[in-house]
C-alpha cells in the first residue's frame, strides 16, 4: 500500500516536472522557429543578392544599385521610388534593370531619390522584338495585365511562350528580356495580331534595381538636361 502510494507520489511529482519541461521546451521550439525563419529569410536574401551580384559582374555596363523604398500609392500609376538621385548621378531618362530584365525608366529625379516609371505603365512604350525571328513591334504597358505587343503583322510566326526582348531603337539596349507571349489573337479585320505579353519581372517583388549609367551624355542630350559631374 505504502509502496503504491510512493509510486503514485513519484509519478505525480514527475508529471509536475514534465509540465515544466514541456513549457520550457515549447519556449525553446518557439525560439528555434524564430531563428529558422530568420535563417530562411537570410538565405533567400543571400540567394537574391548573389544573383544580382552575378548579373552585375557579368553584364558589362556601369550601373548604380538602388533600393526600392516605395511604390506609388495610387492604383492608377505604376511608379517606384528608389533611394538614389541627382547626387548619385541619376538623370531623367535612365534605364532601370534587374537580373531578370527591364524594370522601367527614370522619370523624376530629386537630390536623393528618383521616381521610376515601370514598363507596365500604360504610358510606357518600348521598341521590342520577338527573340526567335527578330520580328519587331511596340510593347505598351497594360498595368495589371502586363504588356501588349502592337504592330506585329498577321503573317509573323508568334506562339505562346515566345520570348520578347528589347529592340534596336530607343534608350534600351538591344536584347534585354521583357517577357513571354501569353496570348495571341488574330482578328479577321486588320493587319496586325493582338499579342499579350507576361512581364518577366515581378513588379510587386522588386527590392532593388540597377540604374544603367551608360550613355548618360546621350540621354541628357535627348532629354535636354545639363549633366553635373558627380561629387565623390
Amino acid at each position, binding site marked *: 500500500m505504502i509502496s503504491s502510494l510512493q509510486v503514485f507520489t513519484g509519478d505525480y511529482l514527475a508529471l509536475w516536472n514534465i509540465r515544466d519541461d514541456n513549457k520550457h521546451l515549447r519556449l525553446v521550439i518557439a525560439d528555434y522557429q524564430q531563428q529558422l525563419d530568420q535563417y530562411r529569410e537570410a538565405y533567400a536574401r543571400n540567394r537574391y543578392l548573389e544573383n544580382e551580384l552575378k548579373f552585375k559582374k557579368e553584364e558589362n555596363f556601369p550601373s548604380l544599385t538602388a533600393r526600392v523604398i516605395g511604390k*506609388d*500609392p*495610387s*492604383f492608377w500609376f505604376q*511608379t517606384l521610388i528608389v533611394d538614389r538621385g541627382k547626387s548619385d548621378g541619376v538623370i531623367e531618362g535612365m534605364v532601370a534593370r534587374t537580373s531578370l530584365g527591364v524594370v522601367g525608366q527614370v522619370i523624376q529625379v530629386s537630390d536623393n531619390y528618383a521616381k521610376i*516609371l515601370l514598363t507596365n505603365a500604360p*504610358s510606357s512604350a518600348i521598341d521590342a522584338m520577338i527573340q526567335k525571328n527578330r520580328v519587331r513591334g511596340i510593347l505598351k504597358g497594360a*498595368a*495589371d495585365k502586363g504588356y501588349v505587343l502592337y504592330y506585329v503583322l498577321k503573317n509573323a510566326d508568334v506562339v505562346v511562350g515566345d520570348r520578347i526582348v528589347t529592340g534596336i531603337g530607343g534608350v534600351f539596349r538591344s536584347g534585354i528580356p521583357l517577357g513571354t507571349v501569353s496570348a495571341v489573337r488574330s482578328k479577321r479585320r486588320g493587319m496586325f495580331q493582338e499579342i499579350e505579353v507576361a512581364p518577366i519581372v515581378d513588379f*510587386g517583388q522588386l527590392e532593388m534595381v540597377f540604374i544603367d549609367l551608360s550613355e548618360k551624355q546621350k540621354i541628357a542630350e535627348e532629354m535636354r538636361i545639363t549633366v553635373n559631374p558627380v561629387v565623390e
Partner: protein
Amino acid sequence: MLMLSFSLVGISLVVCQASIFYLFSSWLGSPDLVFILIAFMAYRFDWLRGLCLVLVLSWVMDVISGLYLGTYPLLYLFLFVSLKFFKEKSPVKEVAYQVPLVGVAFLAEYSGMYAIYSLVLPGILPEWSWARILQETLILTVATIPCFLLYNSLFEYMSKRRFVAPRILRKRSGNYFR
C-alpha cells in the same frame, strides 16, 4: 498644435501608403487614407486651417505619387471644398451621411479624374475597370469608419488640450520680486 498634429498624421499616412501598403495583398487594395483625412478635415476644420492643411498634404502626395504635378492638389482641394459646401448647406444631420458621402466623393472624383486624363492625355491611365474602382471605393468606405473614429479622438483631444508654453518661453513680468 491641432494643425501640427494633423500635418504630422497626414505626412505619416503619405509615407505609410508609399512604403508599406504595396506590400499588402492585392485584394486589400490601396486605400487612400489621406483622402479620408481630407474628408474628415472638411467636416471638422474651419476653412482657413483646412485649406492650409489640404495644400500641404496634397503637395507632399504630389511629390510621391502620380506622373503629373498638380493632380493631387486639384483632387484634394475639390474634395475639401465640395464636402465643406455640402456640410454647410445640407439640412440633413451630418452623422447620417458622413461615411457614405466619402465613398460617393471618392467614386465621383476618381471617375472625373479618369475622364479628364482620358480627354487631355489619352493612353496614360490603364483601361477603365468598374470592378476595380468599386472595390477601391468599398475598401475606402470601410476604412473610413475606424479612421474617422481615430481622427475624431485626436481632434477632440487636441482641441481640449491647451498649449502651455514652457516656462522659459513665457514672458516674464517686470516685477522680479513678485
